[in-house]
């Protein structure tokens, strides 16, 4: 990339010198010349009335990416069990691959995890790239990034998807940086652009108050991390055939970079709402712990989970690990029943992606009603138990 000043056209008018914010141009005799402070921003080009300044900064063509084929999915496993997001990614990957007329593959890292490839194939993987090594037994950043970097560089898929779990969010940016790739975090929607064939990556920003659609035009593979619990896995079909391709990584002790001292499982810090179909949540309107009991009865009748807004948690009515909202968890169940929740932006950010929303609130002007499919203006202490009874009656039929 360079900027050229044509001395034959320069009339020493100094417009470029004035336009440059960095003292990147100066006058040498009667001709403008670049100094070593020039950062190639191009401000001088626009300023020159003699058209003496030009550059090769003009829109670079998009490189030829025809060698990059296939949708790859990171099959995350922990202690020999596949994380559900791995199958969700395969479901989404299979759909994308079909649109591109390409293959979907899973890449599985671990130690003695070969058996997991059967499940991956049953859920849509046409190929499984398997890298096994004792140093890959538990996730650590550097060995995983090193092995994946080698596999991606060698096989050149067009798309690489990673689940946005704690592991994925540690791994994906490190890997993207190593391979000099664009990476979009926490996607909730993926599609193929019909005109140019790029991956359209849609994700929430500003706590979920804005959605953004993003492309990586100039780098391959296109990398995206995907929010768990959003994409749908394919129903397992044990008759599906797939190819297992083993890869022998060469890893030395120093490649570990960090030392995993201990793994501690704790009583659930957070209830995992990502697999919940129904969530019954309470807010300020609960009034006391007694209100929560009504929610629990309804949740049980519907086979769902109880949650709370920040107010409910701070008031001690709902435990912290069940908090939904910007400072709590983001949820997207099939049904979210908001009881006595006003619907402030911070709470909406955590649940507005639910498929259906029922809101119960005494205040007809509560903002929650703006996003509710079914609105009930009333006291949750009356409505919720009545609903529970009606559901139980229906279930008993």
């Amino acid at each position, binding site marked *: *990339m360079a900027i050229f000043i044509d001395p034959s056209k320069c009339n020493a008018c100094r417009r470029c010198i004035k336009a440059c*914010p*960095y003292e*990147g141009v100066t006058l040498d005799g009667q001709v403008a010349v670049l100094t070593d402070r020039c*950062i*190639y921003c191009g401000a001088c080009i626009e300023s020159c009335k003699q058209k003496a300044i030009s550059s090769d900064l003009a829109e670079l063509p998009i490189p030829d990416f025809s060698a990059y084929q296939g949708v790859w999915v990171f099959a995350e496993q922990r202690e020999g069990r596949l994380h559900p997001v791995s199958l969700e990614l395969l479901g989404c990957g299979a759909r994308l691959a079909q649109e591109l007329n390409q293959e979907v593959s899973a890449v599985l890292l671990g130690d003695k995890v070969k058996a997991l490839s059967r499940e991956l194939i049953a859920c849509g993987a046409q190929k499984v790239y398997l890298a096994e090594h004792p140093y890959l037994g538990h996730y650590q*950043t*550097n060995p995983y990034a090193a092995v994946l970097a080698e596999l991606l560089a060698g096989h050149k898929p067009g798309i690489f998807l990673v689940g946005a779990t*704690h592991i994925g969010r*540690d791994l994906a*940016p*490190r890997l*993207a*940086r190593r391979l000099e*790739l*664009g*990476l*979009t*975090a*926490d996607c909730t929607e993926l599609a193929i652009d019909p005109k140019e064939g790029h991956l359209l990556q849609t994700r*929430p*920003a*500003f*706590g979920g*108050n*804005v*959605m*953004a*659609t993003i*492309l990586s035009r*100039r*780098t391959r593979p296109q990398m995206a991390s995907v929010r768990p619990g959003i994409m749908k896995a394919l129903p397992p079909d044990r008759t599906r055939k797939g190819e297992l391709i083993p890869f022998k990584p060469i890893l030395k002790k120093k490649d570990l970079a960090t*030392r*995993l*001292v201990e*793994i*501690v499982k*704790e009583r659930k*810090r*957070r209830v995992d709402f990502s697999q919940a179909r129904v969530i019954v949540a309470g807010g300020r309107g609960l009034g006391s712990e007694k209100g929560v009991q009504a929610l629990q009865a309804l949740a049980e009748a*519907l086979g769902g989970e109880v949650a709370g807004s920040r107010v409910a948690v701070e008031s001690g009515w709902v435990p912290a690990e069940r908090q939904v909202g*910007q400072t709590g968890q983001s949820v997207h169940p*099939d*049904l979210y029943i908001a009881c006595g929740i006003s619907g402030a*932006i*911070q709470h909406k950010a955590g649940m*507005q*992606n639910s498929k259906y*929303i029922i809101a119960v609130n005494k205040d007809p002007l509560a903002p929650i009603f703006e996003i509710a*499919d*079914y*609105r*009930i203006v009333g006291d949750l202490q*009356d*409505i919720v138990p*009545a*609903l529970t*009874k*009606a*559901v139980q009656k229906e279930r008993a039929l």
Partner: protein
Amino acid sequence: MDIIVLVKQVPDTQEVKIDPKTGTLIREGIQTIINPDDLHALEAALSLKERYGGKVTAVSMGPPQAVEALAEALAMGVDEAVLLSDRTFAGADTWATSHTLGKCIQKIGRYDLILCGRQAIDGDTAQIGPQVAEMLGIPQITYVRSLTLTGKKILAERVMEDGYEKIEAPLPALVTVLRDLNQPRYPSIPGIIQACSPYSKIHIWNPVDLGVKAYEVGLIGSLTQVVRTFPPERKKEGETLSGSTREIAEQLVDRLKEIHIL
């Protein structure tokens, strides 16, 4: 020990409003704050400095007004601050941002530990920490809720969905922190006075100072492109259910059957 803290000034997303016509953020009149996770990173740095001595430098990339965030950091007790501010830096995705921050850290030169918040409340990507660590070639530990120094190493508790891991890394290393880590201090009065003084140490650097070209940073240097922003899908008009409590309950059960919950 020398610690560098990466800090971002962000709009207070509690107050965010979306322009319904353009689907973009209305930034006018929005309060800006230090990204909450970054406050905890600053506190961690200051606590370590209190215990082990050394120097804490805060670094931020942003528009000129981001100098306020750095002044706040100085008032908390940070020793020096650098603001990377230039229109060429603007419009950067995480690749270009991490490149710019990384170059700044390389220019500062001395560091034992780099701390950042896990993620910013506007971008929500959590990508900067790991990308800077990779650029510098140092180990990273993310999602940290507890941090201790043991000689030339750090021992951290890294939160997982179902528990935590204890991870040890040699210095220099980069750590991204959670709010669980600590309780950030308020700026002290002497700290505020110091930060407002003409000798307060906020350096403002542009691309020439960092030795970067325009095509490495900002919008041009980004590897991802935003093609569209829009407010989350508004549902179609909801239905109000009314009547006696029992009638409402029965109507709801019908709806639940229609939408296949029951």
